[in-house]
């Protein structure tokens, strides 16, 4: 089997095994109601994780997305409260702002040759700070359009609800998969992850692609912010602290190499679902505390990193090149 598919396969196997364990204890786990909730509750994380997958595939990292999601919620809530605009133009304005924000981080990373880690860290402070500047209170969103979006769902067989935001996440993943595996941009992202020099020699427009990757991540973070605003009906500048780490964890658990160049967008969806599943199990159990989520996710991260490490070693040995890139 292709070694590149192995991490993805492992993720799928772990997901199915974990679901089987949950099902054996709580048969209701397989009901479409639980599945519907799993999708709804993790929609914002999933959408943000799609953007993060592209960033990590290119060998970068984006620490700003949690702050951007919080900023988005506050932006929407404050604009709706103060201007009386319809949500749709507000959404469009927001997506323009976050996309531009991402693109400018990409530009700084490329043109000033600074590590993505530290640039997006500054971006994280900036986005969170802008959210604080807009308001430090939790601003409720009361708009008929929001109620419509929240009430909009497709009743699955078994009375499970595929909500608008859950569906939006699935559509986003579809778009991400097509973008990553069926377009020139996607090929460029993988090439960048393989090595900037090589990519440049291959004729990849490095500057353009880097900016597009972070712009895309900003766009998806903005979209995740919209979803989070619909999900919570409020904008709060202290919300979604640490979501960037959850997204990174989801991407890694989904089998994407953190060094870039190898992975699948579909794996990230499974990664998000695994994390959601752990949370759901803890809720079902009732006696376990939520901090076990963090510990289990840490252990899963560890397991996947070891797996990937092993794979890299094996494939390198097959090529018989004594290469130990750290």
């Amino acid at each position: 089997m292709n070694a590149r598919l192995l991490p993805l396969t492992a993720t799928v196997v772990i997901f199915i095994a974990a679901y089987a364990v949950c099902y054996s204890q709580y048969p209701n786990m397989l009901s479409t109601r639980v599945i519907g909730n799993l999708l709804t509750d993790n929609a914002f994380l999933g959408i943000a994780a799609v953007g993060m997958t592209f960033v990590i595939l290119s060998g970068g990292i984006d620490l700003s997305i949690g702050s951007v999601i919080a900023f988005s919620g506050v932006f929407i809530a404050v604009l709706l409260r103060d201007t009386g605009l319809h949500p749709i133009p507000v959404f469009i304005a927001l997506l323009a702002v976050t996309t531009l924000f991402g693109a400018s981080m990409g530009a700084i990373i490329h043109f000033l040759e600074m590590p993505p880690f530290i640039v997006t860290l500054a971006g994280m402070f900036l986005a969170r700070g802008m959210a604080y500047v807009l308001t430090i209170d939790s601003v409720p969103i009361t708009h008929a359009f929001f109620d419509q979006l929240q009430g909009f769902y497709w009743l699955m067989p078994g009375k499970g609800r595929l909500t608008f935001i859950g569906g939006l996440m699935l559509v986003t993943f579809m778009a991400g998969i097509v973008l990553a595996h069926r377009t020139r941009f996607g090929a460029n992202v993988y090439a960048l992850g393989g090595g900037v020099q090589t990519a440049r020699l291959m004729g990849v427009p490095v500057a353009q692609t880097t900016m597009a990757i972070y712009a895309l991540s900003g766009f998806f973070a903005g979209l995740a912010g919209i979803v989070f605003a619909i999900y919570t009906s409020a904008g709060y500048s202290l919300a979604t602290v640490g979501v960037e780490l959850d997204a990174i964890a989801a991407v890694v658990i989904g089998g994407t190499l953190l060094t870039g160049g190898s992975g699948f967008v579909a794996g990230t969806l499974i990664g998000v679902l695994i994390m959601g599943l752990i949370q759901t199990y803890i809720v079902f159990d009732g006696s376990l505390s939520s901090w076990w989520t963090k510990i289990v996710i840490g252990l899963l991260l560890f397991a996947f990193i070891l797996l990937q490490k092993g794979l890299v070693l094996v494939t390198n040995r097959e090529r018989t090149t004594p290469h130990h890139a750290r």
Partner: protein
Amino acid sequence: MTGLARFLRRIAPQLLTLAAVIGLIALVFPGFFQISLANGRLFGSPIDILNRGAPVALLAIGMTLVIATRGIDLSVGAVMAICGAVSAWGITEGYGLAATLAMALAAGLLCGLWNGFLVAVLRIQPIVATLILMVAGRGIAQLITEGAILTFNDESLIFFGSGSIFAVPTPVVIWIVTGLLVAFVVRRSALGMLIEAIGINLRASALAGVNARVLLIAVYMTSGLCAALAGIIAAADIRGADANNAGLWLELDAILAVVVGGNSLLGGRFSLCASLIGAMIIQAMNTGILLSGFPPEFNLVIKAAIILVILVLQSPRAHTTMVFFRRAPREEPAQTRTVPQ
């Protein structure tokens, strides 16, 4: 050029930045330099900066060494939470001060050992390896405090947060002594040079006979130990251990302090003193924004803007045009690097 002159030249940009920040604060807040003595302890804004900056300064000491090996330690905030939880748990369980401190420091060393093991033995990228503990660490801390904020009233432990030694607040004494001690150990022996050798080229240094594995583990353990000290101070300061918020985002502040200190994130060269000044710059900015009467909401925006300016000034691309901030010449990061000097 003599050693002292070279040292002063190295830390000059940081000293100037710190002077500029403090000068700005003093402009908008004329009473800034007033220091008073009350109840056998010094008070005043400069003392406050030194005191409040203690956790970041301590973390920056370990982080500097880690970054010098071309690594990064994302877990220090979580390690702070764990060690704070351990110290609060130990003291409330009645283990006594010495045993409690020993347990907290041991917990920090253990966390560092774990990180070092992943990086040095399993050869996992440092950012990934330490991400594991960053994610899981707060869960472990909550496990110790059982989800609550564990409070205590033990005066001997509280001393580490709000006590004073010869009128100087204890946290200030702790970070200065730790900084001097670590600087003395790495600079009065070959250790510092060996750490830099690892950062420049791990493989080459290993071939040259440096025991890179042991040294890397030791560096991450030092970082864990510094985080433990910071955790004890943070817990003693609020007289309780908060698993969720203790040391939250401090890993980022510590990395920032190292970067502001002019150390390259690509490793190979480090200055503990510059990092410590960097930590003080960050704290002075925090205090300054508070004192200047800006709404605290602007704190992060201003911080982000200042970081961006400092980073742009230090970016390799800007080096060619900026003579003032110039350090060792570097063309393509990570690929064609030469040993400085």
